């Protein structure tokens, strides 16, 4: 029976890979997810069969199993159904937390209760210690990250005196307790110390990281969760967990690298706390204000209505103002009027990888209009109007020059469009805290308005002009 179940697990793992493979196109992605979910359901059913067949489970054990599954599924289903798309990063963080937490618990259970007394030793305790360590760090780190994203924990970097020595002490503590565990397998005290050190380290690791770096942090914690699950697979001798964990670890790793590259920052730099990443910078000086050209709503509406090609550059400010639906409708009116509309999406637009695409998809924007940075940059010189809403640092031409905070960061070539319109509430700075040279470009017009109000009024004005 055990062998049959293992083959089922292997088939499920193969379906996970195929499911992920189908994610490479929006046409097949949904089928991929369904395949993966079906494989998971079969694997879980097979586990139930295995548990019944083994017959070691007590009545209380069944009760625990059923109640735990019902409670977890209920909470998961409810949150998944009701969550706002803007809150996806928080939800993914919470799932990272529970996944990492569960993985750590498996190892704790295995070591403390000596599930496999015969095989304990370096064979089980090295991955076990790693599992508890990575799982614990992921759990507390993800909870803090979710809190920051939800606004329960301040999203500004929280630094306190002595943070660095504390982190160092925690690192020494978990390395030594892991060593202790390997030397003395089954030591409950070592498990407790290791768990607490890991939880504390996760907290102090994420607290000093600012809001702008969240896409990197979420990806990194995702990679950690995968690795922790993989380690749990080593502990429990389950290849299904090893394969699934490795897949997720790889996916998280790739996304972490992409996000860090898109911000031109090193992963270690972010974890150790790099440049100040407050949510709002100070307002720009008076001389910058003097040189900007402020435009009226009607000017912008006319420009858009008579353009042949418009590229919209959305940033997180758009989502924060919940203006994506208005934007989708504005684009639809322009399209019906014969204007070619597309969206230029910077990899770090939003709070997690690809977040902006989901927000625009929710606002009924067809995905072929969502263009990646490499794809859209050559198109800017042909665009009559580039409409920037809620994006800042990723449009700053200063990144092409050395010697400033964003030097070398890949940017959208908005300044190469024939005309640029920026909808923005004030001349406030982006995360990098420097002036955006795009705003003082002679061909840039600034529309000083709230994103949602601005886009809604623009929609009405354009509608009047095109007579729709």
């Amino acid at each position, binding site marked *: 029976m055990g062998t049959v179940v293992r083959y089922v697990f292997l088939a499920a793992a193969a379906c*996970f890979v195929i499911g992920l493979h189908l994610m490479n196109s929006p046409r097949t992605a949904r089928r991929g*997810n369904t395949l*993966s979910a079906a494989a998971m359901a079969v694997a879980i059913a097979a586990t139930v069969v295995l548990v019944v067949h083994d017959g070691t489970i007590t009545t209380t*054990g069944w009760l625990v199993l059923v109640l735990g*599954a019902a409670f977890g599924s209920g909470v998961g*289903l409810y949150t998944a159904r009701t969550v706002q798309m803007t809150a996806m990063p928080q939800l993914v963080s919470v799932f990272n937390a529970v996944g990492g937490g*569960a993985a750590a618990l498996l190892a704790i259970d295995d070591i403390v209760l000596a599930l496999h007394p015969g095989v304990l030793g370096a064979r089980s305790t090295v991955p076990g210690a790693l599992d508890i360590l990575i799982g614990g760090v992921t759990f507390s780190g993800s909870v803090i990250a979710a809190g920051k994203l939800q606004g329960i924990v301040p999203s500004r970097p929280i630094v306190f005196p002595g943070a660095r020595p504390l982190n160092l002490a925690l690192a020494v503590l978990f390395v030594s307790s892991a060593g202790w565990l390997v030397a003395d397998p089954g030591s409950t005290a070592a498990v407790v110390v290791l768990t607490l050190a890991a939880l504390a380290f996760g907290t102090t690791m994420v607290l000093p990281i600012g809001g702008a770096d969240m896409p990197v942090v979420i990806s990194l914690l995702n990679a950690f969760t995968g690795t922790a699950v993989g380690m749990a697979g080593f502990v429990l001798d389950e290849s299904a967990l090893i394969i699934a964990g*490795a897949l997720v670890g790889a996916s998280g790793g790739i996304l972490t690298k992409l996000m860090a590259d898109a911000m031109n920052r090193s992963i270690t730099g972010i974890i150790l706390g790099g440049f100040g990443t407050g949510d709002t910078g100070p307002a720009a000086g008076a001389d910058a204000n003097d040189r900007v050209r402020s435009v009226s709503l009607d000017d912008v509406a006319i420009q858009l209505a008579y353009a042949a090609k418009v590229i919209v550059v959305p940033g997180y400010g758009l989502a924060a103002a919940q203006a994506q639906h208005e934007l989708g409708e504005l684009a639809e009116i322009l399209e019906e009027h014969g204007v070619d509309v597309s969206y230029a*999406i910077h990899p770090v637009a939003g709070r997690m990888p690809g977040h902006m*695409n989901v927000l625009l998809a929710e606002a009924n924007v067809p995905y072929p209009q969502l263009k990646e940075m490499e794809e859209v940059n050559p198109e800017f010189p042909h665009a009559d109007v580039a409409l920037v809403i809620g994006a800042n640092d990723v449009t700053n031409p200063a990144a092409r020059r050395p010697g400033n905070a964003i030097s070398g960061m890949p940017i959208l070539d908005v300044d190469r469009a024939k005309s640029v319109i920026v909808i923005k509430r004030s001349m406030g700075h982006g995360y990098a805290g420097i002036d955006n040279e795009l705003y003082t470009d002679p061909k840039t017009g600034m529309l000083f308005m709230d994103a949602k109000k601005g886009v809604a009024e623009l929609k009405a004005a354009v509608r009047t002009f095109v007579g729709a």
Partner: protein
Amino acid sequence: MNLDLQTALTVFVLSVLVGFEVISKVPTTLHTPLMSGANSIHGVVVIGAMLIASTAHDVLGYVLAFVAVAFGAMNVVGGYVVTDRMLHMFRARGDGSRQRSTDTKTTSEAKG
């Protein structure tokens, strides 16, 4: 089937490589669903949680098993449902409007 450490490591390393290969082809448009889909996959940890529930025989064991099963179940169910919800929103040009025009046609036909 007891995996020896060497086999387990081989499986792990090869899976990481397969993961890199498969995932690097995913377009940025789908990175959020990819991450949440990958999240559901690591919900496979629920299988481990079920196995520890099956061998639990004291209070500590039951508590650990309950929390682990609940965490894992939440991860699996929530992850797949939210990923499906997101992917449902991605549509190519025309899908939605075609739907709408068919609707209008049906209404006008009904009227006529």
